[in-house]
């Protein structure tokens, strides 16, 4: 399956000035997105996606992957400087980077965050290249029944996503599946749930929903909250010394492994990986009492881990076509928009593209290292933009992005509608991420279910008599039921 010619071509593709320019732009935008409060990887990627339409797919995807990685780093920058993680993935970085910055070592904290991020990102890319191919080779045996099962498995990850109430998680998921059914029925060609509007004939784009429930909803939450922008203290720009970097190498390696594994497992994203890596680093550390007071290991561990989740999440995304997180779901949506079907075939049909993504990711880590170390002191000023201007700017960008998709004002109003829906969901603790996952997986589930039943002449046993399909469905049921059982068992134990 590994083709040397394709690898060579991919490498040459990626090192063209055109692709490199957009990779650097993606990383820089990602860092800015990470620094801006409330803008995460999924929002950032959804906002740039409409503007990449004219680009070569590989370049566009590499730009998005760069944004994703840069965002994981940017979240740590504000955690260190103003004690507020700009993205959830930076929450664990807060504990040690902020004390370190307060002691006057802000440059050291930011430098270490940057190096740890780049290391986690680079190593996870290598692991991705090694593990995705065998998984895809296995998945080549899949037909409609198996793809239905994979879709269901993807949905079952909803159970492992953080939800305060599993019924709300289920309702959000099902709502996403319902949104997918709007538009032209893929089999009969008849309009379905279009309410006589021609704008709905092609269905509702993932992007419309995503820009609404993520970006616009975030603006609304911030508007309601009010309040001022925080100030940054003055700091020294001295970077960490070689000896200090060497001392955290084992921590970075261990955290990369953790981040990779957590990222590949469906449902959990960068923030979970970062917390786990932080705890493990403390457990393994020779100086655990320094944790929470500016420990270098405590800074490096979560940052290596949250950047490594990106490589991890790409494994099931490329090999099976299932996204492991909100940002991965947006990348999947982007690939579909470019006419690419992530899944095992992509390795044989588009080998150059896949290898380009690998090289792009690896180079992205290098770009982050350089750009991060050079620009961080200035980029930190982004947090000084007063909130009224920032929120207005984000609202404007959201509208323009919506307009770029189809050019219809109807879609812009839909974005607003989904923004209000997203706001209500946030306020009532309905998680938006499962809805996005369902939105991306819904088409795959419905079409493959119907296709499999056409093949079997309406015999439902096709899903359980084919061994791979049966196994995947069993795993899906288990992964859905297990978290519920666990919480019941835990409640019992607590009561006893």
């Amino acid at each position: 399956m590994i083709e040397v010619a394709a690898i060579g071509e991919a490498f040459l593709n990626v090192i063209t000035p055109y692709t490199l320019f957009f990779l650097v732009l993606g990383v820089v935008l990602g860092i800015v997105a990470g620094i801006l409060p409330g803008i995460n990887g999924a929002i950032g990627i959804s906002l740039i996606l409409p503007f990449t339409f004219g680009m070569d797919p590989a370049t566009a995807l590499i730009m998005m992957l760069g944004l994703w990685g840069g965002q994981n780093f940017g979240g740590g920058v504000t955690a260190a400087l103003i004690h507020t993680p700009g993205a959830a993935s930076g929450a664990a970085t807060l504990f040690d980077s902020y004390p370190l910055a307060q002691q006057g070592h802000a440059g050291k904290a930011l430098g270490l965050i940057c190096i740890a991020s780049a290391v986690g990102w680079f190593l996870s890319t290598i692991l991705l290249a090694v593990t995705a191919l065998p998984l895809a080779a296995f998945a080549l045996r899949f037909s409609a029944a198996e793809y239905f099962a994979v879709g269901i498995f993807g949905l079952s990850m909803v159970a492992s996503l953080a939800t305060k109430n599993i019924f709300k998680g289920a309702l959000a998921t099902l709502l996403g599946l319902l949104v997918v059914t709007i538009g032209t029925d893929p089999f009969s060609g008849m309009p379905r749930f279009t309410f006589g509007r021609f704008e709905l004939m092609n269905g509702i784009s993932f992007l419309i929903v995503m820009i609404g429930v993520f970006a616009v909803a975030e603006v609304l939450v911030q508007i309601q909250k009010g309040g001022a922008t925080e100030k940054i203290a003055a700091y020294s720009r001295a970077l960490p010394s070689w000896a200090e970097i060497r001392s955290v190498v084992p921590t970075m390696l261990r955290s990369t492994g953790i981040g990779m594994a957590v990222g590949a497992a469906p449902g959990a994203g960068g923030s979970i990986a970062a917390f786990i890596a932080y705890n493990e680093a403390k457990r393994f550390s020779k100086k655990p009492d320094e944790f929470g007071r500016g420990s270098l290991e405590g800074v490096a561990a979560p940052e290596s881990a949250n950047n490594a989740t990106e490589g991890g999440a790409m494994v099931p995304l490329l090999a099976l076509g299932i996204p492991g997180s909100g940002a991965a779901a947006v990348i999947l949506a982007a690939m579909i928009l470019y006419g690419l079907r992530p899944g095992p075939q992509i390795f044989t049909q588009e080998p150059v593209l896949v290898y380009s993504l690998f090289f792009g990711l690896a180079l992205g880590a290098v770009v982050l290292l350089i750009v991060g170390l050079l620009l961080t002191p200035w980029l930190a000023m982004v947090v000084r933009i007063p909130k009224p201007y920032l929120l207005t700017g984000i609202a404007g960008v959201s509208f323009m992005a919506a307009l770029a998709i189809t050019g219809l004002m109807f879609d812009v109003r839909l974005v607003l509608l989904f923004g209000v829906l997203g706001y209500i969901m946030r306020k009532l603790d309905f998680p938006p991420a499962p809805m996005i996952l369902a939105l991306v997986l819904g088409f795959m589930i419905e079409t493959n279910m119907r296709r499999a039943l056409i093949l079997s002449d309406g015999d439902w046993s096709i899903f359980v008599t084919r061994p791979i399909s049966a196994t995947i469905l069993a795993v899906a049921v288990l992964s859905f039921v297990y978290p519920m059982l666990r919480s019941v068992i835990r409640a019992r134990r607590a009561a006893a």
Partner: protein
Amino acid sequence: MIRSNVVSGFVCLGFGAYVWWLAQAVPPMTLTDNLGGRFFPQLISIGFMIASLGLIITGFFGIEISGGTVAQDKSVQPRAEGGDAAGGRTVEQKAAEAPAPRFGAGEVRLLAFVATMLAYTFLLPLLGYVVASALTFAVMIVIAGERRPLRVALGAVAITMMLYALFGVVFNMRLPVASLY
């Protein structure tokens, strides 16, 4: 009883029933496809109603069954003592438990902002990108808390120009032009 859960459960139940009723209009089957376009949406609407009932019943007895990583988060989060992330969450939880939502300045800002955004979608085709944006952004900045007139004007013009440069020039997008004049 968790009132917000019970109420939202009933709203979802009604929505599920509405979708079921809507799906009745979709042809049940075609020559090649014996499941038809109706089956999948109806299946989902049934699931939707079941989940709504679950939310109503557990909400009535005051139970919240948390899923996935929330349980893990709890074991880690006590370390975030004084951390903004943990602090913010507890404040939000308290707000969610409050018996009746208070209608304060935040809600007024919220509704005004949504109304402004909606107005923007009507003004855009009428006044064209530049005028509509500058006006709307000025109103948004005022709603979001900036009251000094000079700064509002400068901010609105600056954001309009920046977005124009980004979308109209760099990304070469066709921005709405005025139809009124």
